[in-house]
């Protein structure tokens, strides 16, 4: 069964304090790994898709990386507006292209 585990559940950072969020996954052949950002009371907002081990993608202060067993979302010099819940999801090669989500990491960046 496809599974996604995110850690930590919650992370509190000072503004400018860089850190990483982890997404460990097991999947029967990876079609893609997705990162989303979710603000309170809103729907998930797409950030990145990674397809193969070694791939990296960047957007502003965020960089996502992928290995065969996990993905990291690196946050460099975060700002308070980066506070949100970050969700990771995987899509398997076989079967219909459903997403299997982790439970997310709640990030709070204090000024």
């Amino acid at each position: 069964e496809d599974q996604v585990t995110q850690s930590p559940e919650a992370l509190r950072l000072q503004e400018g304090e860089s850190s990483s969020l982890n997404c460990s996954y097991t999947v029967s052949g990876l079609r893609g790994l997705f990162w989303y950002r979710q603000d309170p009371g809103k729907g998930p907002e797409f950030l990145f898709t990674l397809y193969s081990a070694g791939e990296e993608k960047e957007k502003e202060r965020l960089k996502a990386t992928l290995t065969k067993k996990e993905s990291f979302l690196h946050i460099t010099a975060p700002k308070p507006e980066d506070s949100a819940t970050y969700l990771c999801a995987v899509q398997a090669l076989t079967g219909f292209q459903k997403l299997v989500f982790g439970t997310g990491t709640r990030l709070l960046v204090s000024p």
Partner: protein
Amino acid sequence: DAGITQSPRHKVTETGTPVTLRCHQTENHRYMYWYRQDPGHGLRLIHYSYGVKDTDKGEVSDGYSVSRSKTEDFLLTLESATSSQTSVYFCATESGTSTETQYFGPGTRLLVL
């Protein structure tokens, strides 16, 4: 942002009442999905559609039905609402072309008393 709206945005209902949630998209995306989000469980797939009148079950489909009579609309019906169906419901769409990215609507918060 795939031009997705959900209605209603908030609803309070009583146990045993039928409830219908609507998802409307303006991007002509082929695939549409209904998820529920609960603390400790993350987003879980209820039903999905791969075309007009083509739907299938997800992992938590018991007690739910769906219909898609037009490309732009995907309806989720709780046939007889129960307290366990209190949740936040999200609709998502995917173009079905080269990208597999799913784009999410703003959600409907449902409380079943």
